[in-house]
């Protein structure tokens, strides 16, 4: 086993020796040469085998010749200086950062380049006097860092990063520290001479520090409480807002009336801790995007054919948005069709897996309708546009109201549900104890009333969920399960219906199991078959070719391919026909034998030798490891459904594979899936949808928890709540189980913080709450909750790791 010096892949067929190093392909060798010649050999010292094998790019970036498109991509443009940002999915190690930041050594026109590793972007400043954007993109592609440019790039968005939480946290932390330091003297000495001299100044300074904390840092709690009250919900922010307001008002009154020092230390500390919890919960995976739609898949430009009476046909790179009905387009091999169109010329073999989930490409004849989202697999096409991009069949899905709805507001979290009872209890305790003191000692009544509200401020309760969920988010992340936000974990624990997509979700994209049925082929026939397949570009031919042994490849005397039907070839005196049943048997499709109708639904390649029917290769999807186990485990306490866009050719196999209580539903279009899920939800179910392609986009959005399974997390996935790496698919049940455990941790933390509240209340109700007690109790409860949740989640996280290790 020899590994490529550049990319680290094992060298299979070809081994290229060059400068005492081994490469797997010429692409890798070229990159090595480019880097080596520019004195960038340090690239290989930083990381072992850091490289990426460059892809075929010829003609791919021709659209960058169009100045209108270039202008849309540039972030900044003046005569001599241009700035552009590229998303480069293949950035993956420190060598990548180094070589991309040393681009100026490869191209003198580059002034500076800066990599943002978490976002996988590079920002390049260059001068258009010496180079063009296209050349820059080609340079990047040549060294293996091909930028990803899609329709999304053409919409210039103001890059707005919300940093307000950091500012608020900064203000609160700054004030908290200073107030603590200023209130320290009065914790111990009350009637001391020097202290009496200066206490007023100390107190007013504390007041000054607290004002921005309450009115700036704590602002969100007031607005959230107000919004909650207006819609009739007692959310957790209501008691917090009451607590903050009472703390501030009472403390201010105390220093005005010279009753005491006030509770400024507790006030600033409270807000600081609360914001810290919020900040902690905000773990984002910036290189993963959870909000993608068709725009990130579609190309930014297509080739438009312009007919001119004088000069004939001219090709032009046109922006996808500018394509009108009636335009003629040229679609090359492996290009994505961005519009609905009619096929005019060429052999279309369209892969719709992206839209419908159907695994097998379909062939189309001239005059057939092609839908947006299909990928051409076979040669060049000429099409006429029927509907522009925004009205196409695929993009219509995004006009469904699901996509404009905000999911986050509807969900009532665990914290909110406890805060309702909590708030009612605290308010009644406050009023009862005030009533009691009104009778016994009216001078203390105000004191007790405010003290109860202060000490009952549910700081610890509000911290329990953010810290637990934030920790869980990190545990999931380190186990290759990436969630959009922390609240998803709570939703996950409530799920009672799990719906799977089939193609690409339960099956792998890469592997096919191929079995042969029929009369066994002779050695000569097999050799001929291999040689014939070698000449074809059809995806089925290629995957079949990959499993046959490639000895004795012959040159064919004759080879003919009929697109969508099959191919015939001859060598010496043997002839072979490979393709559909109708083609191989020379019958019209109507006369097919009955018993093949079952096979019809499966993907098959039939073979005849010397006009004698031999048999067929049956292609079957390979299911992921552990599918049966997952369904078994999930089926115990949840409903499990398979919802497939495919035909029911695999029904038999799935029924054997999966437990009998699994529902199997086939032939579902994207909008059917969406509809199905919303019906389940109306019946009171909490639905988790697990899918992969754009065809599941609607369903993923509609479901309570939409999870995308991804072979390569750098490749884009549709809008969802979480991305699960395909390699850890078998752990899915464990992850759902972990979310239940997380909720349990939160509940224990609630109990713990209620205990603190009881202790505090006993001080408050009896009228003994001194500032120093509040100042100890509040941080103590907050910190112990943080410690408890962290330890508890660490523990369950470690158990998960051990579980996974044991299994593998």
């Amino acid at each position, binding site marked *: 086993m020899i590994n490529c010096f550049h990319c680290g892949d094992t060298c299979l067929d070809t081994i290229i020796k060059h400068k005492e190093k081994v490469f797997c392909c010429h692409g890798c060798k070229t990159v090595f040469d480019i880097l080596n010649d520019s004195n960038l050999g340090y690239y290989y010292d930083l990381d072992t085998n850091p490289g990426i094998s460059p892809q075929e790019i010829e003609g791919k970036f021709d659209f960058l010749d169009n100045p209108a498109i270039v202008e849309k991509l540039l972030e900044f443009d003046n005569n001599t200086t241009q700035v552009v940002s590229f998303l480069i999915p293949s950035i993956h190690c420190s060598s990548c950062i180094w070589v991309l930041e040393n681009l100026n050594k490869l191209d003198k026109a580059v002034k500076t380049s800066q990599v943002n*590793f978490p976002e996988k972007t590079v920002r390049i400043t260059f001068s258009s006097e010496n180079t063009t954007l296209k050349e820059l993109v080609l340079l990047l592609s040549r060294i293996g860092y091909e930028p990803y440019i899609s329709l999304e790039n053409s919409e210039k968005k103001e890059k707005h990063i919300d940093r307000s939480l950091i500012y608020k946290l900064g203000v609160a932390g700054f004030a908290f520290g200073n107030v603590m330091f200023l209130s320290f003297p009065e914790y111990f000495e009350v009637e001391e001479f020097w202290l009496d001299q200066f206490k007023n100044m100390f107190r007013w300074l504390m007041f000054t520090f607290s004002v921005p904390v309450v009115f700036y840092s704590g602002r969100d709690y007031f607005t959230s409480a107000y919004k909650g009250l207006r819609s009739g919900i007692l959310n957790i922010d209501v008691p917090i807002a009451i607590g903050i307001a009472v703390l501030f008002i009472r403390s201010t009154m105390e220093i005005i009336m010279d009753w005491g020092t006030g509770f400024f230390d507790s006030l600033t500390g409270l807000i600081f801790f609360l914001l810290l919890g919020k900040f902690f919960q905000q773990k984002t995976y910036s290189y993963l995007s959870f909000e993608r739609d068709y725009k990130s898949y579609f190309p930014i430009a297509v080739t438009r054919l312009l007919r001119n009476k004088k000069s004939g046909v001219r090709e032009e790179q046109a922006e996808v948005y500018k394509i009108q009905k009636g335009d003629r387009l040229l679609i090359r091999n492996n290009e994505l069709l961005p519009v609905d169109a009619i096929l005019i010329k060429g052999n279309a073999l369209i892969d719709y897996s992206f839209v419908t989930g159907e695994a097998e490409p379909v062939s189309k004849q001239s005059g057939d309708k092609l839908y947006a989202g299909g990928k051409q697999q076979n040669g060049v096409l000429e099409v006429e546009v029927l509907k522009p991009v925004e009205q196409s069949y695929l993009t219509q899905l995004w006009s469904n109201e699901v996509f404009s709805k905000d999911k986050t507001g509807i969900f009532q979290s665990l914290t909110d549900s406890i805060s309702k009872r909590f708030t009612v209890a605290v308010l009644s305790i406050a009023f009862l104890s005030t009533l009691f003191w009104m009778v016994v000692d009216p001078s203390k009544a105000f004191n007790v009333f405010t003290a109860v509200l202060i000490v009952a401020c549910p700081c610890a309760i509000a911290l329990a969920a953010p810290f637990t969920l934030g920790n869980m988010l990190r545990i999931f992340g380190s186990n290759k399960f990436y969630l959009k936000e922390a609240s998803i974990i709570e939703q996950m624990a409530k799920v009672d219906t799990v719906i799977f997509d089939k193609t690409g979700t339960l099956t792998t994209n890469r592997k096919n199991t191929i079995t042969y049925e029929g009369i066994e082929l002779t050695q000569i026939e097999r050799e001929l078959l291999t040689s014939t397949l070698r000449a074809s570009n059809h995806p089925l031919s290629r995957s079949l070719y990959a499993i046959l042994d490639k000895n004795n490849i012959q040159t064919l005397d004759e080879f003919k391919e009929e697109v969508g039907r099959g191919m015939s070839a001859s060598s010496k005196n043997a002839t072979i026909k490979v393709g559909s049943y109708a083609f191989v048997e020379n019958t019209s499709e109507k006369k097919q034998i009955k018993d093949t109708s079952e096979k019809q639904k499966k993907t098959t390649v039939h073979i005849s030798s010397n006009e004698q029917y031999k048999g067929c290769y049956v292609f079957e999807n390979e299911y992921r490891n552990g599918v049966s186990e997952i369904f078994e485990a999930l089926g115990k306490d949840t409903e499990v459904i398979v919802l497939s866009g495919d035909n029911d050719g695999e029904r038999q196999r799935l029924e054997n594979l999966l437990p009998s209580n699994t529902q199997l539903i086939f032939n579902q279009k994207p909008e059917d899936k969406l509809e199905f899920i919303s019906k389940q939800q109306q019946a009171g179910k909490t639905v988790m949808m697990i899918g992969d392609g754009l065809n599941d986009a609607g369903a993923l959005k509609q479901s309570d928890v939409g999870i995308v399974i991804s072979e390569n997390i750098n490749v884009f996935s549709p809008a969802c709540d979480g991305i699960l790496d395909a390699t850890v698919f078998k752990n899915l049940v464990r992850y759902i189980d972990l979310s239940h455990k997380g909720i349990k941790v939160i509940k224990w933390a609630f109990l713990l913080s209620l205990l603190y509240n009881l202790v505090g209340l006993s001080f408050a109700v009896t009228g003994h709450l001194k500032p120093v007690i509040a100042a100890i109790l509040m941080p103590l409860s907050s910190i112990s909750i943080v410690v408890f949740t962290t330890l508890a989640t660490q523990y369950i996280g470690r158990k998960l790791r051990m579980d996974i290790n044991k299994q593998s």
Partner: protein
Amino acid sequence: MSIIYVLLSISVLVAIIFFIAFIISVKRGQYDDTYTPSVRMLFEDELVKEETFHLEKKENKINSNN
């Protein structure tokens, strides 16, 4: 005892200076990407220069030999 006023104002002033420095650094985006700079710091730019330096030396030697 008015020294305490001086001390107090100095301490508050120092705190405010650091606070402002923090706000400015956030505003300039220094906290947006906390990973890449930690890697960039470890690159030894000198390594490449050294090689060219050796080459120059060699060339000089050859030139002087001539």
